[in-house]
C-alpha cells in the first residue's frame, strides 16, 4: 500500500512538473516580442552563454576531429579506402557529432551555469524582488537567456564541425599521408548541403531550444535552498543529456530514415 502511494505521488509530481515546464515555456515564448525590443539584454547573455563556450568548443572539436581521423584511417586502410577518410570525418561530424557533442558540452558548460544563476536569484529572492517592483522577471531575466542559448548552439555546433574537419584533415594529411585532394574532393562529392549540413543545423537548433528550456526551467523551479540549487544543476545536466540523445535518435530516424 505504501509503495503504491509512493508511485502515485511520483506520478502526480512528475506530471505537475511537466505541466509547469510547459506553462513556463509558454511564458518565455510570450516574452519574446518585448525582449526583441531590448536586444541589448540578449547580447549580454550571448556573451556569457555563447562566447565563453567558444574556447571549449574549439578545443573539443579539434580533438574529436583528430580522433575521428585516426580511427577512421585505421579502419579504412584495411579496405584500401583511406581516400574516403574525408567523407567519413565530414559526415559523422556534420550529421551527428557536431550537433550532439556540442549540445552535451553546452549543457555542461552553459546550461548548468544558467540553472545555478537563476536558482540562486530565486533563493536570494531577487526574482520576487523584481515582481515587487512590477518588473516581469520572465521577460527581464529568463527570455533573454533563452534566446541567447537558442541562437548560440547552432553557431557553436557549426564551429565544432568546421574545426573537427580541420582536425581530421591535419591528422589525415599531415600525420598519415592521405592524399589531400582526394580528402577534400571525396568529401565534397558525398556531402550534400541540404540533406547533410542543413539537417545538422536543424538538429542543433532543436537541441539549443531543449537544453536552454530545461536549464532555465530547472533553475526557476529549484527549491530555493543551496541544496535545492545544487540538485537542480545536476538535474539540468542529466536531463539535458537524456533529451539530447533521445531526440537525436528521433531526428535521425526522421531525417535520414528514408533515403
Amino acid at each position, binding site marked *: 500500500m505504501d509503495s503504491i502511494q509512493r508511485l502515485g505521488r511520483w506520478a502526480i509530481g512528475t506530471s505537475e512538473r511537466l505541466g509547469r515546464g510547459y506553462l513556463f515555456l509558454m511564458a518565455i515564448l510570450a516574452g519574446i516580442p518585448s525582449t526583441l525590443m531590448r536586444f*541589448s*539584454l540578449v*547580447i*549580454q547573455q*550571448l*556573451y556569457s552563454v*555563447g*562566447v565563453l563556450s*567558444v574556447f571549449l568548443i574549439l578545443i573539443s572539436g579539434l580533438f574529436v576531429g583528430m580522433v575521428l581521423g585516426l580511427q577512421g584511417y585505421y579502419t579504412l586502410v584495411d*579496405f*584500401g*579506402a583511406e*581516400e574516403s577518410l574525408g567523407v567519413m570525418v*565530414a559526415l559523422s561530424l*556534420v550529421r551527428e557529432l557536431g550537433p550532439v557533442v556540442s549540445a552535451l558540452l553546452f549543457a555542461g558548460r552553459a546550461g548548468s551555469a544558467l540553472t545555478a544563476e537563476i536558482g540562486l536569484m530565486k533563493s536570494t529572492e531577487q526574482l520576487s524582488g523584481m515582481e515587487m517592483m512590477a518588473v516581469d522577471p520572465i521577460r527581464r531575466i529568463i527570455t533573454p537567456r533563452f534566446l541567447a542559448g537558442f541562437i*548560440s548552439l*547552432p*553557431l*557553436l555546433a*557549426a*564551429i565544432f*564541425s*568546421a*574545426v573537427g*574537419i580541420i582536425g581530421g584533415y591535419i591528422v589525415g594529411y599531415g600525420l598519415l599521408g592521405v592524399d589531400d*585532394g582526394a580528402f*577534400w*574532393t*571525396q*568529401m*565534397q*562529392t*558525398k*556531402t*550534400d*548541403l541540404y540533406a*547533410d*549540413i542543413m539537417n545538422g*543545423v536543424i538538429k542543433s537548433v532543436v537541441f539549443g531550444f531543449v537544453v536552454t528550456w530545461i536549464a532555465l526551467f530547472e533553475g526557476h523551479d529549484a527549491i530555493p535552498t543551496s541544496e535545492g540549487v545544487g540538485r537542480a544543476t545536476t538535474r539540468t545536466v542529466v536531463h539535458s543529456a537524456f533529451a539530447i540523445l533521445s531526440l537525436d535518435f528521433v531526428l535521425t530516424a526522421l531525417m535520414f530514415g528514408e533515403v
Partner: protein
Amino acid sequence: MRQKKSTEVTVGLFVILGLLALFFLAMKVSNLTSFNDEPGYRVTAEFENVGGLKARSPVTLAGVRIGRVESITLDSDTYSASVVLNLYASFSTLPTDTAASIYTAGLLGEQYIGLEAGAEEEFLKDGDVIELTQPALVLEQVIGQFLFSKAGGNE
C-alpha cells in the same frame, strides 16, 4: 542599459565566427563548390556506357586532375551517353586525338575519366568532341564473358 563595448565586440566576433564556420561547411565541405574551380573549357565525349560516373567526377591526365565532369546526358540518336567535361584553361594543349576512358579508383572506389594524350598537332578547343572513347568496365559483364569463355574452352 548600456553595456561595455568589448562585450558587444566579442559577441559580434562570435556570431561572425559561427557564420564563417557555416560558410566553410557549405562551401568547402559540401558539393556547392562549382564556382571555386578555376575557369575552363568544355569538351564533349560520347561513351557507350558510363557505369557509375557522376557529374563532378574528376577528369585526369596521367593521374593528375585537370577538370571535372560537368553533366551526363543521354543522346537519344545514338543511345549513348554524352558526357560534357570541363577542363581547366591551363591545360589547353590537349591534342585532338586524345582518348577518354572511364576507370575506377581502386576496386570499389569512385569512377573517373582518364585522358590519354594523342599525337596530333592541333589542340582541343571549347566545344570539341573527343572521338576515341572506351566505356566503363562493368564487372558483371567481365565476369560473364570470363565464365562464358571458360565454358567454351572446356568443350
